[in-house]
């Protein structure tokens, strides 16, 4: 039993942190928020230069073969700065999915290229913006003699303009839950994308239109009608990636509140002397640590195909998205009026947490999954 990080893992976190600080830190996120369309490409290339795009790619495709825990640790550091880019979508969602379901041709086509930093992917999951997975998946894919025809609109596709390929979830059989789902690999060049205004300006969303798009046999990822199980695991991985990133941001929020508590004076004292501020910051820290433990465990359970994994993911998602929304809000309160300004960083993270809190299922829905497992 060893639930601590290895020295190498600690060192990797420090390296990534230092690297991202050198790249601009949270300014990277601000550039994206301000509409700078180049920052995602630039950052991705730099990350590829450090080999981190190869993290989850298996050895045989020139990758580093790292596990979900390692990825979570990496994403903590990405999340510390809200650094923009489809890291979770590519490395956490698409790569393990293609590795699990893909044909040799598909693996050859995508995995090495991701490792080299040449290919990025994202996921087109939602059809119903008002429902959560798996009920979000309603788009038909018609099976024809020549292959498949996709027709419809995916309203909430992250980074569609910044990636080469989308994993598209469709429903080819009318079964409930994750049953009857088929997955496709679709080049973004073949679809029409329209940006959506988002609360979290660091993670762009697009409406993606599939206009009677005909796909070859080889666009199908995994079995026809049978991609659901893998999709569920993929969504679980994406959830853990999102939570890991939020925990990184929360760690930084604790630091920010602590620094402010020591430096800002009011009524002749550093404000961190007032127990309201002290105790709020202590609570932020405790919930961040508790959430971090849940994330590490969920990542470990996913990696080890532990039967407890779905519960562990749901538990981490509910706790982390909810507590982090509170943590970032408390960071605002700790900073008083300054915390409410655009120039202060707290809101960047708050908006991110608020978005993730319901993007792949609400805390209530996650808790229902936990109850299902326990009862």
């Amino acid at each position, binding site marked *: 039993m060893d639930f601590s990080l290895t020295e190498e893992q600690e060192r990797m976190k420090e390296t990534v942190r230092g690297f991202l600080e050198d790249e601009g830190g949270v300014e990277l996120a601000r550039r994206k928020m301000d509409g700078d369309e180049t920052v995602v490409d630039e950052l991705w290339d730099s990350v590829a230069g450090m080999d981190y795009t190869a993290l989850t790619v298996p050895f045989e495709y020139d990758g580093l073969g790292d596990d979900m825990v390692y990825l979570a640790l990496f994403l903590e550091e990405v999340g510390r700065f809200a650094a923009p880019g489809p890291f979770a979508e590519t490395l956490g969602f698409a790569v393990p999915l293609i590795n699990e379901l893909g044909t040799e041709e598909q693996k050859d086509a995508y995995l090495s290229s991701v490792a080299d930093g040449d290919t990025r992917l994202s996921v087109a999951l939602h059809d119903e913006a008002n429902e959560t997975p798996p009920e979000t998946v309603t788009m038909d894919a018609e099976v024809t003699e020549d292959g498949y025809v996709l027709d419809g609109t995916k309203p909430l596709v992250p980074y569609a303009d910044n990636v080469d390929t989308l994993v598209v979830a469709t429903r080819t059989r009318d079964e409930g839950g994750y049953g009857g789902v088929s997955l496709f690999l679709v080049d973004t060049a073949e679809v029409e994308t329209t940006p959506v*205004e988002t*609360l979290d300006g660091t993670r762009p969303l697009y409406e993606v239109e599939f206009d009677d798009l005909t796909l070859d046999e080889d666009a199908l990822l995994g079995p026809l009608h049978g991609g659901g199980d893998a999709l569920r695991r993929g969504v679980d991985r994406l959830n853990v990636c999102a939570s890991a990133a939020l925990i990184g941001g929360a760690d930084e929020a604790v630091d920010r509140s602590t620094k402010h508590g020591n430096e800002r004076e*009011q*009524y002749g004292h550093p404000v961190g002397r*007032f127990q309201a501020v002290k105790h709020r910051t202590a609570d932020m820290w405790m919930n961040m640590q508790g959430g971090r433990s849940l994330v590490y465990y969920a990542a470990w359970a996913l990696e080890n195909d532990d039967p407890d994994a779905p519960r562990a993911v749901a538990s981490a998602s509910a706790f982390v998205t909810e507590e982090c929304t509170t943590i970032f809000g408390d960071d605002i309160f700790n900073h008083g*009026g300054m915390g409410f300004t655009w120039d202060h960083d707290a*809101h960047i993270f708050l908006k991110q947490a608020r978005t993730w809190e*319901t993007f792949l299922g609400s805390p209530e829905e996650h808790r229902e999954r936990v109850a299902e497992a326990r009862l």
Partner: protein
Amino acid sequence: MLDRFTERTMDLEYTQEQEEFRQELRSWYEENLPDGWLEGERDIPEDGEEREEFLRDWQSKLHEGGWAGVHWPKEYGGRGATLVEQLIYNEETARIDPPPSISVIGTDFVGPTLIAAGTEEQKERFVPNILDGEEVWCQGYSEPEAGSDLASLQCEAIDEGDTYRINGQKIWTSYAHYADWCFLLVRTDKSGPKHHGITAVLVDMNQDGVSHEPIDQIVDDSTFNHVYFDDAVAKKEHVVGDVDDGWRVAMKLSAFERSALTQAFALEKSFDELVEYCKNTERGGKPLSEHTTVRQKLAELDSRIQAGKLTYYRNVSKQMKTGEPGPEGSMDKVFTGEIKQDLERFKTKLLGPEAAVWDEDAPGGRWQTSYLQSFGTQIAGGTPDIQRNIIAERVLGLPKDAKE
């Protein structure tokens, strides 16, 4: 023992007169609001000048209708409304949610302060121009190094005979970009204890020595400003109260601020909107209003909102009788502020994945904005920490925070 029956007991019905007041206001709004407003087309121009013109026009309409200074004495052009009428006014206004009043600092804070503490000349010169929006006011209190802690303020006024020369910086100044005048706190004496030596003075915003810069907020909007005073000039005759005694004047004004309003009516409106949404939105095959988790949270919010509103009623009723607000009034800002945040956060959560979208025209765009705004509402005018200190110290009599 039977003397109790000579007094009316608790009564939550309104008199016919009060109901008529409510009806009059409602009718006026219906006739005078911009076209389409009541149907939800709340188009206020975004552009700065157009926006200012729109808001000034609305203020002047309010004034013409006699609704600009409901709580002002009649002799100053107000309606001299009773507290219950003010309550009705606030309730109906929250329900209608009309365009904001550009003169709110003047009508709610500066006007009453001048009427209570200004010289005759000041009253004559300034008070008549407040209600009709002729002159818009802002108030210059907080400074970068003096947020909640006003006693630390540094913005300096140098005595030059009949005038003061003013240098310094203010922050969180609402309406500074529209304002003609500023109710400003300056330091006139640095030698004494920090509460001493602060003076309240009225400063013309339309002079070279005054500039302002918007502060971008997390809602991607700016209703606050930095205001810079660079050799600005104020007349000594525009000092309010005594020189060096501005702290007391400011505290008085801040008492007006605290007892002025409740958010409870706005909460009720927001809650009603939520109820409608839940009835009309399906998730997982049934309306949200049939989800137990939603029902429980709605009920909890309802109880808290009602607790806030009814406590406000108790406070107003007490003030009607005794002339002084009761201690219950102190809790309104923090109690309703926290409900507000919780309610708005819950509303955005109900949007599901679509909560990611932040477009004014999107279903949840306005709700996301309200959620973010709820932080500002809580912080502005005294954070929840400060409010709890005020309650603990002034209402309950607990000791003050330790000082060095």
